[in-house]
């Protein structure tokens, strides 16, 4: 182990085996971040394949491809994979890579803990996906795994247990990463990098870490209690022995709702880092954005039972008002983004296109979320495809698009190579069209009354929306193929990207692409949330532009 100095990068010739060993024993946040990102993308492809199988099955009312049991396993593992093995960890992966760079640190606070967390994540994912091969098959209870269906009688066999252990492993990994990220932001910022000068991606990752720390333990508790019920004669969720079925739902959703914000807050941050660059303006309302993120974090802990409105066992009014309120800080962010673009000079490279697509799609998801917040309306929507459509608009149309925005924006920094702009734009348009074609019809089938988690449905009013949706799913698959071609081509052609291909604002653009082992040979003075921008304009302007705005400075940088 070495004290931190800043050695020059050393490029030796390494054999394949040696490089593999390097990766397995790495403790460098950049390598670990890349492991998170690449592993998450592989899991995304697996989850996407499951989705294509499901959509094919749903193209006709009767069974046409898989059995009911297999279909139930597919939607369970699809949801589990996309949530636990893709959207949440890829956010932590980008956080791992970028946060130390954006705050001017040489690495994360606990590098070996960081390495442990990525291996636990990967092993957790392997556990979940290999549960398809268990006797009795994989878990078939939905990603929510409600008791008693997930109990010993409802779900016999090791598949359900492997789901539990896989979820536990990824939960431990997430908690470790959250602790690491918070300690890093507390203690390893570069001189002059006050909290209120951090990039908004870093701020949102920090707030995500708070949520992870508070939300994941109840999940770990819920699935452990489930395991005890299953194997150690527990009766936590067994009403015939004094237990409570609804207790599982309280514990699960106390985790589950903050989890969806864990899956969206980093991407709000990504979009907020990218839009200003391509608008040639600073973010509008930095302080408001941070306060809104904090409000979202707090409120997200008090809305959990809006997933339980139809149980008749919770105070619908309390959860309804809280769920309505959480729409407000989310809406504020839209005004941050629009205010940034307003009177700017916009260009539409691929990352910006994905950010705009994110906004357009997330708005629909958000508005339908407000509809779902109204408890009596939810008596109709709950457990129908209306909810499926809503959640895919926020997670698919929202987070997924922002993930691709992040990928296209930071790939040059991480690899040193450029991605083809033409293919990127084609990928965007194919995905935007395919996505909306897939999920808009599901609002319609949901309003007509089609329930979730069924492989077969009665012929008639549900058929046409389902067929359109399946067509859209195939279009999205074409988009993913274009994306893969784009990535492979970038590694083949190796067109150098340079240190700063976009004119970026934050510290990572000051160093090389890819950065050296301990990130920075040198740092400019940090006087605002745009240190790279300020450095580039140090000759032309009066130093950092004075606070330009109306009203007293809310937070002086």
């Amino acid at each position, binding site marked *: 182990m070495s004290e931190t100095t800043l050695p020059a990068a050393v490029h030796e010739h390494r054999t394949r085996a040696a490089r593999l060993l390097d990766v397995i024993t790495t403790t460098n946040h950049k390598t670990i971040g890349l492991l998170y990102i690449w592993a998450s993308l592989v899991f995304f492809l697996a989850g996407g394949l499951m989705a294509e199988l499901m959509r094919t099955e749903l193209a006709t*009312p009767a069974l046409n491809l898989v059995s*009911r049991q297999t279909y*139930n396993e597919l939607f369970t593992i699809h949801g589990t994979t996309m949530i636990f093995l893709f959207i949440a960890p890829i956010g932590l992966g980008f956080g791992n890579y970028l946060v130390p760079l954006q705050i001017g640190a040489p690495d994360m606070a606990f590098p070996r803990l960081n390495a442990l967390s990525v291996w636990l994540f990967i092993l957790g994912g392997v556990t979940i996906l290999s549960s398809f091969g268990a006797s009795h098959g994989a878990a*078939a*209870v*939905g990603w929510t795994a409600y008791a*008693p*269906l997930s109990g010993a009688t409802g779900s016999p066999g090791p598949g359900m247990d492997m789901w539990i252990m896989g979820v536990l492993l990824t939960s431990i990994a997430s908690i470790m990463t959250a602790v690491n990220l918070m300690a890093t932001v507390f203690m390893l910022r570069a001189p002059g990098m006050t909290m209120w000068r951090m990039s908004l991606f870093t701020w949102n990752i920090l707030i995500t870490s708070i949520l992870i720390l508070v939300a994941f333990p109840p999940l770990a508790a819920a699935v452990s209690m489930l395991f005890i019920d299953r194997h150690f004669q527990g009766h936590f969720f067994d*009403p015939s022995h004094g237990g409570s*079925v609804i207790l599982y739902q309280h514990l699960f959703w106390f985790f589950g709702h903050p989890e969806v914000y864990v899956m969206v807050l980093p991407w709000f941050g990504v979009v907020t880092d990218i839009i200003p660059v391509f608008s040639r303006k*600073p973010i*509008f*309302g*930095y302080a*408001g954005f941070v306060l809104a993120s904090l409000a979202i974090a707090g409120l997200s802990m008090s809305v959990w039972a809006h997933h339980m409105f*139809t*149980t008749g*066992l919770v105070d619908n*009014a309390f959860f*309804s008002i809280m769920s*309505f*309120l959480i729409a407000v800080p989310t*809406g*504020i962010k*839209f*005004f941050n983004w*629009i205010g940034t*673009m307003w*009177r*700017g*000079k*916009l*260009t539409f490279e691929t990352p910006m296109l994905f950010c*705009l697509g994110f906004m357009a799609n997330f*708005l629909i998801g958000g*508005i339908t979320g*407000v*509809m779902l917040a109204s408890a*009596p*309306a939810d008596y*109709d929507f709950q*457990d*129908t495809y209306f909810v499926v459509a809503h959640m895919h608009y926020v997670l698919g149309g929202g987070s997924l698009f922002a993930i691709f925005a992040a990928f296209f924006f930071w790939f040059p920094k991480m690899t040193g190579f450029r991605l083809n702009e033409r293919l990127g*734009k084609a990928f965007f348009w194919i995905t935007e069209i395919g996505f909306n074609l897939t999920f808009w019809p599901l*609002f319609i089938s949901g*309003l*007509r*009354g089609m329930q*979730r*988690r*069924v492989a*077969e*449905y009665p012929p008639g009013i549900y058929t046409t929306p389902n067929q359109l949706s399946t067509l859209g799913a195939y279009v999205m698959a074409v988009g993913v193929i274009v994306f893969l071609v784009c990535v492979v081509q970038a590694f083949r052609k190796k067109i150098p990207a340079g240190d700063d291909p976009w004119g970026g604002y934050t510290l990572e653009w000051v160093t090389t692409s890819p950065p050296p082992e301990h990130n920075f040979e040198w740092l400019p003075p940090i006087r605002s949330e745009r240190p790279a921008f300020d450095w580039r304009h140090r000759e032309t302007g009066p130093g950092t*532009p004075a*606070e*330009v705005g*109306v*009203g007293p*400075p*809310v937070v002086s940088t």
Partner: protein
Amino acid sequence: MPIIRAGERRTGRASGGPGCGTRAATSAAIAVIALIGMPACTFGMPRGATVQGRHISSLYQLLFWFAIPIGGLVYGLMLWSILRYRRRKNDDGSLPKQTRYHLPLEITYTAIPVVIVLVLFGFTISTMAKVDKVSPNAAATVDVTGFRWQWRFDYPGYAFSIVGVGGTPSSGPTLVLPTGGTVHITLRAADVIHSFFVPDFNFKRDAIPGVTNQFDLTIPDAGVFRGECAELCGIDHSDMTFFIRAVAPAQFRAWLQDHRGQGVIQESP
């Protein structure tokens, strides 16, 4: 090269679009159509075959009517920014004004949404009170039990129950109810969580082991309405279809008498 070039070749008019007169007439036409159409459009949700369901449908329409201008405003602002503020080909490379904040605007766009959601919450609470209200005088009471994978309907006091056997996504047992008065349902689950969902009523309630849920339905007009289970309960979750047949009160009483004392009646497709 920016992909979005719409608007670059607009008409040469100074106002950049159709003239004021045409614009006013178009807006007026849209407003008139909207006002006329307003009561008629249910935006995809069934109108509601119960009194409670109609309240829910009205609430949903209201939510939708709020969503249209809000969504329209945000999309409009986005579209305007994309079209009006994109970098031109002959750009001189200067920086636009680097506005970082505008406190009055930020406070406004925080306060107005809070007011809007409080209004929506008010409508929500009043609708919920109407839908969840359980009346002390029910014209009929049925005990419903969900089990893997069908339903059982008990008519207390008449010593018979109807049990579905071997349903499919399209067929299942029939729950007969009277129109006009308040029908009281008690809902239980025998094994895992199920959910009693009738799309035409815009309503569902979960059946949870260890819990008895209660709700009222008031069905004004006769008809047949399909129901399904809306909580994943295992492999044949999609087979838990049932039908509600609402008939006039006199017919209902006659039907009850016909079946009185018959014990468990199995209904299979």
